[in-house]
């Protein structure tokens, strides 16, 4: 595998999209942690709301952007390829991070219910290209 491309932070404009109006803080309990990145030199915009974690979404959005730019440079830009790569990436991340955590949480809960077969299975990510919006 070739090294994964990175994008300089200086070329990125980042936005956290909360949706809704109002003053926020204690008054509102959001579940949305959507992150939007704009690549200033090319104007490409990507977003991620794949996970509940803003931290993770920031990382995922950067990986999507890097991949997108890499594809463009190589000139063999293929949306299908990009989507597939993204799916795998999101899967890998949620597996690596939340899965481990939630398994731990589930194990603590296991005393009450014993049937937790489902948690071990990989649930397919159903949202889709919602998360890759490429605006020119």
């Amino acid at each position: 595998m070739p090294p994964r491309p990175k994008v300089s932070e200086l070329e990125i404009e980042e936005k956290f999209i909360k949706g809704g109006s109002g003053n926020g803080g204690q008054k509102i309990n959001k579940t949305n942690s959507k992150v939007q990145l704009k690549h200033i030199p090319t104007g490409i915009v990507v977003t991620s709301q794949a996970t509940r974690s803003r931290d993770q979404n920031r990382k995922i959005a950067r990986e999507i952007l890097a991949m997108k730019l890499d594809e463009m440079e190589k000139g063999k830009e293929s949306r299908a390829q990009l989507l597939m790569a993204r799916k795998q990436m999101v899967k890998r991340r949620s597996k690596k991070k939340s899965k481990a955590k939630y398994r731990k949480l589930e194990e603590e809960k296991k005393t009450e219910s014993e049937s937790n077969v489902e948690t071990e299975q990989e649930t397919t990510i159903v949202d889709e290209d919602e998360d890759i919006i490429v605006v020119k």
Partner: protein
Amino acid sequence: MGPRLLEILTRTLPTQQAVNELRWIKQELPSDKWEEAVKQRSQQRPLQYILGTQPFGSLTIKCREGVLIPRAETEEWCTRLASCMDGRPHCTNVLDYCTGTGCIALSLASQLSDLGQVVGSDFSQKAVELARENMAFNGQELLESRNEVGFENCDLSRLQVPRSCGKFDLLVSNPPYIPKNDMNVSGGVEESVLKYEPWSALVGDLEFYHYLCSMIPVIGAKAFVFELGYRQQGMETRNLIPDSWKCGLGYDSAGHIRTVIGWCNQELDSLGDMVDEMLA
């Protein structure tokens, strides 16, 4: 089953949010719990109480009824605070008053090394217990930073000082800051918050900033960061601390006033990175 569950969620949530939330429910709960989760969510029970957690920076914070769910705005300033303290002449011993789930104390303790003691205190026994669970739950993330973290039951209105430690350089807090008169939908408070989150974590105003400012000399703090919801709470804080202190307001990423920050000596000037508007 999928389309029907989604249909139920979209009755009360915007479509994209419903799609996201159903995906997370399916990822994080066993399939025999999906139906009940969707039902509860459509009755506005917070997703974090249903799933049992909320991400906070790189931590996963356990949540349950009786203790306030950590907010993204809090996560934001904690991250900002950690990055402006990182590698600089830093503070020893940090007190997080009104700690709730422990998210602020744990987040700072995991991001900054050698802080000494990091203590979270709350007058709610439920909160203190949950905070301790969260410390254990995030043990891995806390390991490397070599801080001593602990949680205690203390009442801020009685200016109680934690028993495990008396002196703290930094005081941080996210006290209840919604005035009683605004505790309704027209005051901007979400239905689900009103129905499911503890009012003792939410209702408060200037009195909390009075208590916090009174704590500063008691524990010998040299710097503070308090979350707030109203400009007046920041102005009050400015008036209560000595004129010689530097003090300013920080905004959140939506552009709302979110924190008041103060410090008493030049060594701590890096806290100026938290400030978007200095107060004279």
